[in-house]
């Protein structure tokens, strides 16, 4: 993420928010989505697909593709790009591997 002092839109000093991602505290800016916090921290992928076990993260960014699904505070299938991060949110990754291996 662009440091605020270099941002041409002259933002006010940001307020921090910290979420727990896969057990590790990650800080972002208040008002960011869970996906935005993770992307800004350098994480590009977090879901593992069912059949080919491939990594996925944000694709559409506007709540349409459902590629960025995560578990938030114990509830599965939350679109990370749509959920606003709250201080202390616990984010876990979804591995959708089917029983018996690849489909």
């Amino acid at each position: 993420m662009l440091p605020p002092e270099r941002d041409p839109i002259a933002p006010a000093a940001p307020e921090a928010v910290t979420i727990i991602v896969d057990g590790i505290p990650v800080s972002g800016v208040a008002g960011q989505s869970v996906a935005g916090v993770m992307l800004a921290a350098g994480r590009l992928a977090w879901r593992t697909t069912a059949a080919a076990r491939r990594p996925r993260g944000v694709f559409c960014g506007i709540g349409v593709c459902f590629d960025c699904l995560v578990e938030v505070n114990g509830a599965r299938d939350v679109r990370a790009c749509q959920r606003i991060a709250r201080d202390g949110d616990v984010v876990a990754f979804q591995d959708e591997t089917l029983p018996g291996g690849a489909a």
Partner: protein
Amino acid sequence: MTRVAVVGAGPAGLAAASAALRAGAEVTLLDAAAATGGQYWRHLPPSRPAAREARLHQGWRDFTMLSRAVARHPRATVIAGAQVWAVEPCAFGDRAPTLQYAVGDADGSDRDVRTLSPDALVLATGAHDLTLPFPGWDLPGVFTGGAAQALAKSERVAVGERVVVAGAGPFLLPVAASLLSAGAEVAGVFEASPAGTLAAGWASGAASVAAMPHKLGELAGYVVGQLRGRVPYRAGAGVIAAHGIDRVEAVTVAALDADWRPIPGTERVIACDAVAVSHGFTPRLELAIAAGCALADDFDKLNPAGLDGLDPAHFDGLNPAGLDRLNPAEPAAPRPWSRFVAVDDDQRTSVPRVFAAGEVTGIAGADAALREGGLAGWLAAGGDPGDRRVAAARRRIARYRGFARALDAAHGIRPGWTDWLTRETTVCRCEELSYGRLTDVLEATGSRSIRALKLATRAGLGPCQGRICGRTVESIAAARNGAPLDGVVIDRRPIAAPIRFSELARLPHPEERHEP
């Protein structure tokens, strides 16, 4: 007092709400996002004020004026974070359809489930990116143009440090500008349509474009002001593959012919850590289809002539979407890329008391959406159809239809794009369906039924419900086996958004719903 519900708070929805208030209605404006503005005016949250945020937007003053006027109006209720998940048509036709919606954290488990039965409904649900598949498009680091823009404008996150922008349409320019503003390097903008197609397409709509000073100024602003000298732009080229193990490390760009076929020998590899690709837009039709609105797949049918309100004959011969019935006649070649809600010159749909405005009725940009929304909101509220502003709005909207046609002529998807696919390329991202498997099934079955194809391949049955792959699959199926015969429209999604069982269990009892 007329109670008007507006779904979608982008340019069309905000204009509709504002006009309906002016006409004296009580207005409820619903949007699934945390704030109004839609994707066009997607912006920083109130917790992140910025002195010069207007730099990131076009028409920012229109947005601030409209959104404030609506939010402060005593007859308006603006509900952000409101996900409409079902629309139930009114059985007796004396009311608008009933909306089922959930309010709270996105995909939360304890949202407030509510019902709304308005007198009139304006659907302004907008559109999302249409990104065609290419080898490697399922790698992390491949984004739609909309994702790159949304993250830059509302979070100040650049999706990569060195980003390639590709696809088709004028939208690629604001995507590149947003990336630059968020601190990324843009390695190039690649427009699929060659210069000749662009020139001919835009010339066909020159009069319409000239009538849209905002749009002209917007595009000129990007090219001259923000991108020139900083970003290479090339027409007649596209990203035909993305490379990497677990993330994008490079893309292959090739020259494309007028049909968007890659020209052998022109490939070159560009190193990048992200790519933003959009080939157009897909309207969000599911609520309109659930309401029973007819669709149209031809620009000339979208706004049937006739100023005397709804004449059901206008809608004869239009695609009977949502009816899932076998059409006995050989259907015309389908145009899955240009299927929208059919409206007349008053933005009325085929369903009484239901209006539609903005990108769900055709991709014509924010200027058109503002006018269409204003007209729809005014008439939905029972405003005087003889008002001079109504006639003026109709004239402007007619010109914008010319712009939509020119946009399609210049940038519309051409059939040669499938040449850049390989058998291994993922087509349906959710169900991990490959192009080879899809074409094998099409060949083996000869199927011309979208329903059968979905069940045989699982295309469109995953979490996104065919929002990303649907029109691609339809197009591939039609090209191989002929136009589908079963009348199934892939945009039909009776459950328009996921809802949890715990929330369903809290739905109001049907008898409690029909409040006066």
